[in-house]
């Protein structure tokens, strides 16, 4: 088992054989190489060839390197007769994958050098994926190795994600990579980010290492599987945020579902199986509806042009009539609403959170719920603007009453801290959805910011609840009381995270809520009830303080009523290191939200502009009427891979 961090073993543990050192160094070097090649991805003025040479070098050496690493990692007790074949297999596998890897280069507009790396995003997905596969070849008996590998891969991904920040996002998409995957069905491997997904990708790359690091204290069994699940989950989440091909998006969307299902089901609490199944079924039910909608819309495109496509920008061009669009929209939207989760399909969330281990809860709250809100913003509003506008007013009512107010009221009644925080997520995501429904610049920016904020503050809260759970093995509010005395640092951290969650000005939560509420009131999508909804959202501010402070009071203040609480050790160094970045981020975003807002502003304005252009240009009750047809390709879409399909037959008639 893992050696306790508090007592460093004087002699090397027998479970840590001599080969670990060199193998480890090699792994670190590999990742560092990749990270550096990406960090230097856009040297000012230098030609892009130097960069691709580095990539090519890594690429050509990959099979040999993989073989060597895997062979080296096999425990010394196994002889060469085991090592060589496995190493060979790994090398072949690597060769296979590198050959499978789409060979076609991305389209480069003529005359212009590529402004930015086209493979960077693939590295972001590929690194954790490769890490997950590497974990499979590592011995189960070496937990420290597994943990370190996971962390290093995650930190490498984080480092590789940093160059994303060096680009001014503006209105368009960046780091565009578009390669044909399955030609027959028009399925591409198309990834790119804009100012909206940029922050969600960064949120993912930042919060997963924190979740992993925090979870290593409490996860004691099946560490190998845990590390594997973590890395797969990260790959799936990043992939879903960057995919611009609907098929690819769906693949990633499902990819992240399974590791989370395992996390809850294997490492969860007493009722874990039930919660995991509930989580899985709820999400799956939505996903299937989305799949049907994706297939239908791709099929329609195929009928119009002769060849189907799953490309986001192509499918955006399809004009549907109302009866079709509403169903397609519903297929996507219900899937996203389940993920958000919105009332009334939210009941899986408290159960999942209560049973999930700390790391799982953190990722679930910080990133996976954002998948629903991001999906709604990108796909529902992007593909079905008329339907999104039509139902905005009604759904905003659901978000306010069912999310902000109802979620808060439910949270107030909870005795289990984790359940309470889970219900508070329902309330917070109600704000995000309200911002998206209001469809004004400020409210949408606020919604995207609030996605990040919720990831940070709720992530911190789950982490901290995990800390106390590890010590007391209970989460019932009544079992605590007066904890501020034995655990002052912990109490301070918890209160800061609470205040951010409550939306105290100066913390990040305020900026998001404020922008959403302000934007909601000036919205013209919500009909005449925009005022009522803004007031409802403002009432949520009171309720938020009510339930969070009640919980804080029950946990930390008052006399210590239980003997066990007198000597609870305070937060330790590992936990503090994990939570510190989140606490810092709370203040940084609270005071300098423009750091984030300035990058997303143009992307949000483009998204909203697309919606209102469609909604306002359509005759009749805001919908296009007549046969399904294609629009012109949007100006902000990245360049296409292939030449546009021959003029569709349908348009000729």
């Amino acid at each position: 088992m893992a050696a306790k961090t508090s007592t460093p073993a004087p002699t090397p543990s027998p479970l840590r054989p001599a080969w670990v050192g060199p193998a480890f160094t090699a792994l670190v070097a590999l990742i560092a190489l990749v990270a550096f090649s990406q960090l230097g991805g856009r040297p000012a003025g230098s030609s892009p060839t130097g960069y691709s040479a580095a990539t090519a070098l890594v690429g050509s050496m990959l099979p040999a390197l993989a073989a060597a690493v895997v062979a080296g990692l096999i425990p010394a007790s196994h002889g060469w007769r085991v090592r060589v074949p496995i190493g060979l297999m790994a090398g072949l596998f690597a060769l296979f994958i590198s050959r499978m890897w789409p060979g076609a280069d991305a389209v480069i507009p003529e005359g212009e050098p590529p402004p930015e790396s086209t493979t960077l995003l693939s590295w972001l997905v590929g690194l954790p994926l490769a890490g997950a596969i590497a974990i499979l070849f590592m011995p189960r008996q070496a937990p420290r190795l597994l943990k370190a590998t996971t962390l290093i891969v995650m930190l490498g991904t984080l480092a590789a994600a940093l160059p994303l920040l060096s680009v001014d996002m503006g209105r368009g998409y960046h780091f565009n990579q578009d390669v044909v995957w399955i030609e027959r069905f028009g399925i591409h491997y198309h990834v790119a980010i804009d100012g909206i997904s940029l922050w969600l990708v960064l949120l993912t790359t930042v919060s997963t290492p924190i979740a992993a690091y925090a979870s290593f204290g409490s996860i004691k069994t099946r560490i190998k599987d845990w590390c594997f699940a973590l890395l797969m989950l990260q790959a799936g989440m990043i992939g879903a945020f960057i995919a611009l091909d609907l098929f690819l998006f769906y693949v990633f969307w499902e990819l992240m579902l399974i590791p989370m299902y395992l996390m809850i089901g294997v490492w969860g609490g007493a009722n874990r199986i039930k919660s995991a199944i509930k989580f899985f079924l709820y999400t799956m039910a939505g996903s299937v509806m989305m799949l049907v909608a994706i297939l239908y819309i791709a099929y329609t495109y195929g009928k119009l042009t002769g060849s189907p496509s799953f490309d986001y920008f192509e499918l955006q061009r399809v004009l549907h009539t109302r009866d079709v669009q509403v169903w397609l929209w519903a297929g996507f939207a219900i899937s996203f609403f389940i993920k958000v989760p919105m009332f009334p399909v939210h009941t899986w969330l408290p159960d999942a959170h209560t049973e999930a281990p700390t790391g799982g809860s953190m990722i679930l709250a910080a990133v996976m719920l954002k998948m629903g809100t991001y999906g709604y913003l990108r796909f529902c509003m992007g593909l079905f603007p008329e339907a999104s506008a039509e139902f905005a007013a009604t759904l905003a009512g659901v978000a306010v009453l069912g999310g902000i107010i109802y979620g808060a009221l439910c949270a107030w009644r909870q005795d289990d801290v984790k359940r309470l925080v889970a219900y508070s997520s329902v309330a917070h995501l109600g704000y995000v959805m309200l911002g998206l429904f209001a469809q004004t610049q400020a409210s949408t920016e606020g919604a995207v910011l609030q996605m990040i904020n919720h990831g940070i503050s709720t992530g911190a809260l789950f982490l901290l609840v995990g800390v106390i759970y590890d010590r007391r093995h209970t989460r019932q509010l009544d079992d605590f009381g007066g904890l501020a005395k034995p655990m002052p640092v912990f109490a301070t951290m918890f209160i800061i995270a609470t205040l951010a969650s409550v939306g105290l000005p100066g913390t990040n939560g305020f900026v998001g809520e404020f922008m959403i509420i302000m934007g909601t009131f000036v919205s013209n999508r919500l009909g005449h009830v925009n005022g009522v909804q803004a007031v409802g959202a403002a009432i949520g501010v009171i309720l938020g303080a009510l339930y969070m402070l009640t919980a804080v009071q029950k946990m930390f203040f008052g006399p210590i009523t239980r003997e066990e609480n007198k000597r609870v050790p305070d937060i330790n160094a590992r936990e503090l290191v994990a939570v510190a970045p989140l606490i810092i981020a709370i203040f940084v975003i609270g005071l300098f939200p423009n750091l984030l807002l300035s990058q997303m502003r143009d992307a949000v304005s483009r998204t909203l502009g697309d919606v209102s252009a469609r909604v306002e240009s359509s005759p009749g009750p805001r919908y296009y009427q007549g046969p399904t047809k294609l629009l012109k390709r949007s100006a902000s879409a990245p360049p296409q891979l292939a030449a546009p399909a021959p003029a569709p037959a349908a348009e000729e008639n």
Partner: protein
Amino acid sequence: MKDLLALFPPADFSLIGFILAMPLIGAFVNGVFGKRLGKDAVRLMALTAIGLSFVAAVVTFIVLDHQVDLSRSEVTEAGVTHVKYGHVRLSWLAWEWMRISGPRDASVPIELKFSVDALNGVMMLIVTGVGFLIHVYASSYMDKDKAYWRFFAYLNLFIFSMLLLILGDNLPVLFVGWEGVGLCSYLLIGFWYTKLPNAAAGKKAFIANRVGDFGLLVGMFLLVYYTGALDWQGLEAAAGSLVNTSDAHQVHLWPLGGGQFQGPLAILQPKTPWTITAATAVGLALFLGCTGKSAQIPLYVWLPDAMAGPTPVSALIHAATMVTAGIYLICRLSFIFVLSPATMMVIAFTGALTALLAATIALVQNDIKKVLAYSTVSQLGFMFLGVGSGAFVAGFFHVFTHAFFKACLFLGAGSVIHAMHARVHDDERSQDMRNMGGLRKYMPLTYATFAAATLAIIGFPLTAGFFSKDEILFKALVGHPVHPQAAKLAARNFPVFAIPSWVGPTVYAIGVAAAILTAFYMVRCLILTFFGDFKGWTVGRPSMLAKHEHAHHDDEHGDDDDDHHHEEDLSQPGYPPHESPRLMTIPLIILGTASLFAGFLNPGFLKGLLHWHDIPLDHWLEPVFETATAAIELPKEEALHSKEMMSTVGAFMAFAIGAGAAYWVYIKEKGKPARELIQKVPGLYQLVLDKWRVDELYDRTVINGADALSETAASVDQGIIDLVLARLSALLVAALGTLLRVFQNGVVHVYAAIMVVGMAGLGWFFVAPHAQAEVKAERAGDYVIEAAPGLGYTYRWYPDAAGKPQTETFGAATQIKVNVEEGKTKVVRLEIKNAFGLTGSKDFTLTRPKAPPKPTQLQLGQNAVPSGERTN
């Protein structure tokens, strides 16, 4: 001055940043490193931070004064020369915070910008100056507390937030400070958090404030919507649109948001929608915020509970600074409030009623801090009464004087409690005035300053409180806020709310009544505490007492050791109560002196009496309230003068009656009348002692209501939503599974039986004829109907179902071509015969729409719906 201006130009006055940064640094250093620094370093850090901030504030004030002097101009109006000053601001932009959407997709930048003008310049001096004195006091008062560092970190943080509140140049920045002081108040009320009531009081304060903050938020988005600005200058420029008479500038209360009820709900539709002007909506929303922060009806209940915090906190936050934020906000946005006379009336009445209600409660309280707390609520009511009547200068002046005398009273009370704590360790008993008495002898400095402040608060002539309270009552009597465009709108038949003329005198009368009670309870408090005999414990002769007994107990409030300290046996003689150390008495002396003399900054009463024109504060603040004062109607000069005399006499009588009665009851009769009265009406006494049971009322209604609501929500969530969505659908699937399982039981007979049934079904399908066909539309009304093939099928077509068949016999023609005229309908029948000689038929109705604008295939396809079926 020149150098100073070169360093800090008025448009980029970065000294404000310094004023703000010092307390923040102090809070950070003390909060993070305080535990290791030790008490002396913490004290040094905290005091230096606030001290430097105060010095910088004074420098800022001097620069501001200089700038104001530069803007001086003389205006001659109707032969009289007035001196006029411009509205000067020193501003400093830190950075842009965010951008929000305004009306018509405009982008409204929200900047972290600060500015100082005459109004918040004075406020800034109060906060840093009085704040510094209280810090000095606290550094001695809290000496024995183990969480000394935490206390000063919070206190510095409070000063920072308060400065943010008053220096902010727009509403969002003010809101940051507004919530920031709420947070510090929460932390400081619950400073001794191991006691549950303290923590609960902190929470209550925070939540009551949050209710107010809700109002402020609503006010902000209304302002953005109607004016497109949130900074003071932008708001002042665009405030006119709040009284725009167009329908879009009315806030629709019913139907909500201006909708229309239809169908059976039309009964709910009023004849004319209920609307209020945007100005009233904004005013009321912002005022809700003020009632939270400044403890007015209905949200005042948190303030008395807040006395659970350390006494310097009560002095600083809950008397001198934070609670006056509401008045500051109204003064700051006076140009918006005067646009709505209805709001002004609500403010004045709320203030007056709060003043009276709190004063009645204060009459019977025995806890010295509770008396002072209710007195604060009552005085805040006076201030709102003032600003609600349009007397912004007077209301603000009362903030100014109140800061001195109430801080002095609280610190004096703290000094007394400190002395009582020498032997009485129980909080409740050490603050009970019935255990005090006669302290005048033992604590002369405390007594003198407490008495000075008491004179000020009860309005003893020529003390600070006298001038400010007199001015408020006078303005309440004569001032009459009028809608600025009342005449214009009345001409256009637009209904404008006008304040009835009885409001002024009524509010004045309530104010005088509250002033009488104030004088009574404050004198009662003074007498019970400092006069008569000491009742706390038997005072022994010093030579007879053991040395160690005098030592202060370390754990007097120590939050770090929760051992229940044993109560001393008070029947044993002990040392006499002692005067407080010098660090505590010096602030008392300064504040006491200020309570006596600060009134001369704005002696409104003398202005009339001695015909002074250039009284300092009035002139200083004139440009700030220029727009607002224009909307207040005052009577003519002569009437004004006579009313002023009347009101002053009233105010003086209030003092005389209240103080005289208290003197008679508690000195002359030794409290006998009070005891007799209590025995006569014990029910009423108990009711007042229980604060009119307002807390219980709130518990029963609002709190219980919200509780029940959340209980319902939680059980609905588990019992209905989860039940229907998760368990019911699971049940359905399970039921279906159970049903299907019956057939999958492994018994061969059953399988065989099912097979037979299946075979029979299939056989029937093949034997029965199925007349099915697909209708295809071609251009120009041509339709092709193609029949589906089948086993040995032959077909017979009827181009018209009523007419003859195409061929007499069944043939092999699988399709028929039909032409339909525009706007006509045709029914085509298909008959089939299968290999077994059985026949079946089906009708197809073809409808061609009447002259479609441009008939295309797809539209035809949609409209020509095949319908009707008659299969055998």
